[in-house]
């Protein structure tokens, strides 16, 4: 049994994590921290480069004004450390001896070259779970290739199918390839942690962004592997199927004719408005007909009808009849979502009234919590180095002077 003290208020209370990661792993560190782990963000002296990424809050000054940084580092503590220096390496080894989990996203082999690889740190701490998140993983011919969110999307097969047929392939909004890598890594880490609870044994977790994306595409791999045909870009006609997004009076609306009744209801409502054209004809009875030769004819009729109604009207008709229809919410409407507020998903914090996204899932015994906002650069140096690692105040001052901390 892991020695986690008395505090079991969150699933990961008492678990110590060293977060050495950059873009690929920072969300993984946040997930660990938000679920209760004591995550120590190890920043280079002067602060993590991510603090220079916008959006910025206008009421604060660098290096504490990045909302990007603040979002991804909630509930973490911060220390500064030059891990490339000899003394810095020794300090990190000392910290790793007290840690349950280490998360890093350097080029494969880099930490080993500093004497900080899994093979080094597990000597003093065989229970350490050591997670490495990289663009292509720790092995294979592309292991040293560079990555970015966009390149990860491309190589993972998600980008080729996203967007319009006559336009370039498209990425998803935000840093979804990075976040997917972190989401996958979090699963691997939790599996390793569960095993450690039973056996005391740690292990290495190797996560590749390319694989994380490739296993998130739903249909790209199964389409090719089972039909021999590539899935292609279809805009918002999902896979050319019965799921589609239509322009309406005040934006766009998502209409899914996933059952025969949904398709019949849609036709009936169009007919009621005198806009069904010939769609009531029995040759259109098959709800999969959108895929076939009549596809563009049906699309024209449906969109002519949706253009005469609002998102709300169409959503309400669909939902009242248990059809999975809904509005395309615009970005500026995100914070108007009454369901998210009612369930306490959004959390408004502090005098700045910043709204943070909350728990990705609710655990009845207490899971996600926003205990503290992101730390300032080196905010916990004295707490970690002196109170926990046992350095004297003078020793810490010397390390600061020499640029190690």
């Amino acid at each position: 049994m892991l020695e986690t003290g008395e505090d079991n208020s969150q699933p990961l209370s008492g678990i110590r994590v060293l977060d050495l990661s950059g873009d690929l792993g920072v969300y993984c560190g946040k997930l660990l921290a938000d679920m209760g782990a004591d995550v120590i963000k190890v920043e280079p002296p002067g602060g993590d480069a991510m603090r220079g990424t916008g959006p910025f809050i206008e009421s604060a000054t660098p290096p504490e004004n990045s909302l990007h940084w603040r979002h991804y580092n909630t509930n973490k503590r911060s220390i500064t450390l030059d891990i490339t220096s000899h003394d810095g390496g020794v300090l990190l080894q000392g910290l790793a001896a007290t840690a349950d989990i280490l998360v890093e996203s350097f080029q494969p082999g880099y930490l080993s070259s500093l004497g900080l690889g899994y093979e080094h740190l597990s000597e003093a701490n065989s229970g350490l779970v050591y997670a490495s998140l990289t663009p292509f993983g720790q092995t294979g011919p592309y292991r040293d290739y560079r990555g970015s969110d966009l390149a990860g999307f491309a190589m993972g097969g998600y980008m080729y199918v996203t967007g319009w047929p006559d336009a370039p392939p498209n990425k998803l909004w935000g840093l979804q390839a990075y976040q997917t890598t972190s989401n996958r890594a979090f699963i691997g880490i939790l599996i390793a942690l569960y095993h450690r609870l039973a056996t005391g044994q740690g292990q290495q977790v190797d996560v590749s962004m390319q694989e994380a994306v490739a296993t998130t595409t739903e249909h790209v791999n199964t389409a090719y592997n089972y039909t021999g045909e590539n899935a292609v870009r279809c805009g918002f006609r999902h896979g050319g199927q019965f799921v589609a997004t239509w322009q309406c009076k005040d934006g766009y609306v998502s209409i899914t004719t996933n059952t025969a009744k949904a398709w019949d209801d849609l036709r009936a409502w169009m007919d009621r408005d005198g806009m069904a054209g010939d769609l009531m004809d029995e040759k259109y009875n098959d709800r999969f007909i959108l895929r076939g030769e009549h596809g563009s004819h049906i699309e024209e009729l449906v969109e002519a009808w949706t253009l005469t109604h609002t998102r709300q009207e169409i959503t309400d008709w669909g939902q009242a009849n248990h059809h999975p229809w809904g509005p395309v919410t615009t970005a500026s409407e995100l914070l108007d979502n009454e369901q998210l507020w009612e369930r306490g998903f959004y959390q408004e914090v502090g005098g700045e009234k910043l709204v943070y996204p909350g728990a990705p899932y609710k655990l009845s015994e207490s899971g996600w919590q926003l205990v503290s906002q992101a730390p300032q650069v080196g905010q916990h140096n004295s707490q970690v180095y002196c109170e926990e690692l046992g350095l004297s105040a003078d020793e810490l001052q010397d390390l600061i002077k020499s640029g190690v901390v």
Partner: protein
Amino acid sequence: MTLALKGIRVLDFTWIHAGPSATRILSDQGAQVIKVESNQALSVVGGPASNTARGLGQRHNWNAGKSSISLNMKTDAGKELARRLVAVSDVVAENFSGRVMPGWGMDYEGVRTIRPDIIMLSMSGFGRTGPWKDRVSYGQTLQAWSGFTDLTGFPDTKPSGPASAYSDAVGGMAGAQAVLLALIQRARTGRGQWIDLSQMEAMSALLGPLALELSANGHSVQRTGNRLHHGGGAPHGAYRCKGDDRWLAITVFTDHEWADFVGAIGSPDWASDQRFARAESRLGHADDLDRLVESWTVEQNAEEAMHLLQAAGVAAGVVQTGQDLAENDPHLRERGLFQQVPDAAGTLRTIERAPYKLSLTPGEVTRGAPEFGADQDFVLREILGVDDEELAEMAIAGAFD
């Protein structure tokens, strides 16, 4: 092989994509996942449209390694068997609409009376509380409602939204995480719990700093195509290459990377334009720069150009197709992303392995998805110890119809 979740039993009522992909993650690590299916609802056999080749692939991919039994939950005998299975399970998973499990007496309050330390995963579109709790959704509905659809696409065209159901994959990842967290907490406290997973919340959590940005600065936010909303570089996009619908993603952020990029493509005259000398200025002239970069890529084979740029340290990646992933990518082949496992008839089926490699407990998949109801005997006789006579009575009572 040491399996991290050996000894954990999951009673799996989930169907379609999100739920089964969550429990497949547990199955890979040695959990015994029993799919509860029903003849009464053939459309819910754990994979959409499994009468098509693609549907068959999805059934295998999301249900590999699991067992299947057929229970008719409309009968008392079927419900009684389900309750007996709960009593010997660690996890119950479901993603029905909110009325179904309570109707069977199997909401969390119901199952915990059968097994007090049970972990119950309830996945839904909007969560099991709040004004929208009874609304229904598909992956695309949630992508639309959560903002992803509007945000994905180029600024001057209609939004495309994510292809396929990102929200289902996200729901699957979130579901597995939540169950693992609950198993960890149970190992420490002895207590089970209920997981109320709203896929809209799992998606909204991934819009990251956007909520903070809107609340802090109130600026309107628009989709940005292949550029980043913040912290962007240039060039940063997908560029057309030689061949039919071939593209290369290229991302350059720092001036150092720019110098490497220019050197790698042979230092064409246009690259020495002073507008492109500094990162900020490149961003300001990104449209012009994109056209010039594409004037180079259209003459290149996408794979060769990727290798050329990567050799110079530039993050570039081919926009790979399904065929590329399955057949042309030597890296994925060496790492073994795709595995071949036998189905019930012994035919080899291609599935994805877990996208993380654990050195001590890598997990394993030894077979494809089960045939509908294939493990009736194993589950009823070996797990529950039901004898012939009882089995016959249950059959007469319609438990398996």
